């Protein structure tokens, strides 16, 4: 049959039908997932994958169905965490009453598992989850050598998801929770001094043969480098009691291929990384242990990897409170529908980090947008 001008060919019709069908499937996928059929964890992972495979311009409209998991550590079977008063669906983890070492082990386990599950759920930081449509995306190669202050005021919006909130029952911490000045319980002090997250992450894993440390660093590091051990002790330098911790996933995005620039090459050599990625990182305070075991400044990593504003807040947050808090990170190219086009690949850094949940100024400073369900 002769193809008249303007007439649809069978090939075009099939293509059209396929486009419509995939559009309908996508709509069904995003809006008609029945919550009862999936666990919250599965729903979160599905929505993360949905986000990652969607174009930047509509990412914000695809709901991220990740709900903050609330964990209450309490020493009594009927104990409650005041932090979750009036909130539904929180998990209780019972702490033993006369075994400080076991208490410490449980806290370390909950903490490490929360970091890991958040990291896994968010695609190990390698997926472009929040898009670049609302942020300043121009890559500024000439400005890489400038101080971070140069970038202040640029419209970059690191976006966060609060994966977990881990709270400790105030009855477990204080002699009298209604009068917190009354002092801490001896048993709590005994237990908390035994908590060593760094050690737990090095010696334990999520299952299988790999430790958390290996999982977070692309299987590259099995032991902390000596330089790291020299830098960080076990004491919390700020002291004080943090009765609730938020495990928060942070992503900050840059556009363009930073690896093409001379500055990146130099920075990568400086940190000992080769190839196209810096890869999985362990961040402690404002220092980073990279996949080849070098201990480097977070400022250097962020300055080179992200190279736009918004990083200052992250750096100060990492430097300030909880200097010994351990986090996982990734810097490099993010998987995105655009990533196939090398010039338009999306680059950035992702971290999963614990924050003192009561220190809202620090969290608000870093997380200009929070996604997911409370």
């Amino acid at each position, binding site marked *: 049959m002769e193809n008249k001008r303007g007439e649809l060919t069978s090939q075009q019709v099939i293509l059209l039908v396929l486009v419509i069908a995939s*559009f309908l499937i996508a709509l069904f996928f995003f*809006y008609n997932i029945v919550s009862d059929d999936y666990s919250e964890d599965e729903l979160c992972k599905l929505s993360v994958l949905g986000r990652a495979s969607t174009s930047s311009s509509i990412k*914000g409209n695809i709901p991220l169905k990740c709900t903050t998991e609330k964990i209450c550590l309490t020493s009594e079977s009927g104990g409650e965490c005041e932090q979750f*008063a009036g909130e539904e669906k929180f998990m209780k983890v019972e702490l033993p009453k006369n075994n400080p070492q076991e208490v410490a082990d449980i806290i370390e386990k909950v903490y490490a598992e929360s970091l890991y599950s958040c990291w896994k759920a968010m695609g190990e930081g390698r997926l472009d989850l929040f898009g670049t449509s609302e942020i300043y995306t121009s890559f500024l190669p000439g400005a890489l050598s400038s101080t971070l202050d140069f970038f202040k005021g640029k419209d970059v919006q690191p976006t966060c998801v609060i994966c977990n909130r881990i709270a400790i029952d105030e009855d477990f911490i204080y002699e009298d929770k209604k009068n917190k000045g009354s002092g801490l319980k001896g048993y709590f002090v005994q237990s908390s001094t035994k908590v060593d997250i760094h050690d737990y992450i090095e010696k334990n894993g999520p299952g299988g043969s790999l430790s958390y440390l290996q999982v977070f660093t692309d299987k590259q590091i099995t032991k902390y480098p000596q330089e790291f051990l020299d830098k960080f002790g076990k004491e919390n330098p700020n002291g004080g009691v943090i009765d609730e911790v938020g495990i928060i996933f942070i992503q900050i995005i840059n556009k363009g291929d930073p690896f093409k620039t001379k500055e990146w090459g130099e920075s990568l050599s400086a940190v000992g990384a080769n190839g196209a990625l810096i890869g999985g990182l362990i961040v402690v305070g404002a220092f980073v242990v990279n996949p080849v075991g070098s201990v480097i400044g977070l400022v250097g990593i962020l300055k080179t990897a992200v190279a736009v504003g918004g990083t200052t807040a992250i750096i100060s947050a990492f430097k300030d409170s909880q200097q010994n808090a351990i986090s996982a990170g990734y810097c490099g190219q993010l998987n995105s529908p655009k990533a196939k086009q090398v010039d338009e690949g999306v680059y950035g850094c992702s971290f999963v980090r614990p924050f003192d949940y009561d220190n809202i100024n620090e969290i*608000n400073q870093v997380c200009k947008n929070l996604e997911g*369900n*409370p």
Partner: protein
Amino acid sequence: MIKGKRGWIREEVPRIILAVLVVSIIIYGAYLLYSSYGNQENQKAKTFIDSLEGKINALEDGESNEFTFRTAKGWTLTSYSKQDAKVPDKCFGKGCICICNIDCSDVKSCNVDSVLSSCQDTGYCRKINVENVKVNNIVLETSLGGDSFYQNYSYKGFSVELERISISKGDKIIITSNDESISVGSGAGSG
């Protein structure tokens, strides 16, 4: 000629139907995406007010505590007591807390009437089993002359994702939040 018309109809009608179908699906999809964004915002506001109500109910009489809340950015928290002259219809007869779709993060850009109007139209309100409920948004204001004073507003606009809010429960419920300090031209209107 008639035969030609029939032929044209046979050829064009399926294409027109297909085109209408495609356009409808695209419009429907766009609508879903748009409404999804709105739903997320509304859901945040509902979750916040439910969480606040839950914490008020969980506190015992005479107890007070401070909590970290996930807020709804661009929305405003306010309260109405039973004896207030002007309250949203949904608050009639009891003390009430509301989150309303009006951006009062700049306290001076709103007043009690604009907040009430928004609460009437777009607010999510929860009745509380106490007659007197009060939102205290305490703002340190500095006048041009350099004098500083605290001003108390009965509404709190959210501009950040997390807020520390203290709740005191007794004969009346007081919900207190501290806003950023601001500079004012002269005097200050109270909420």
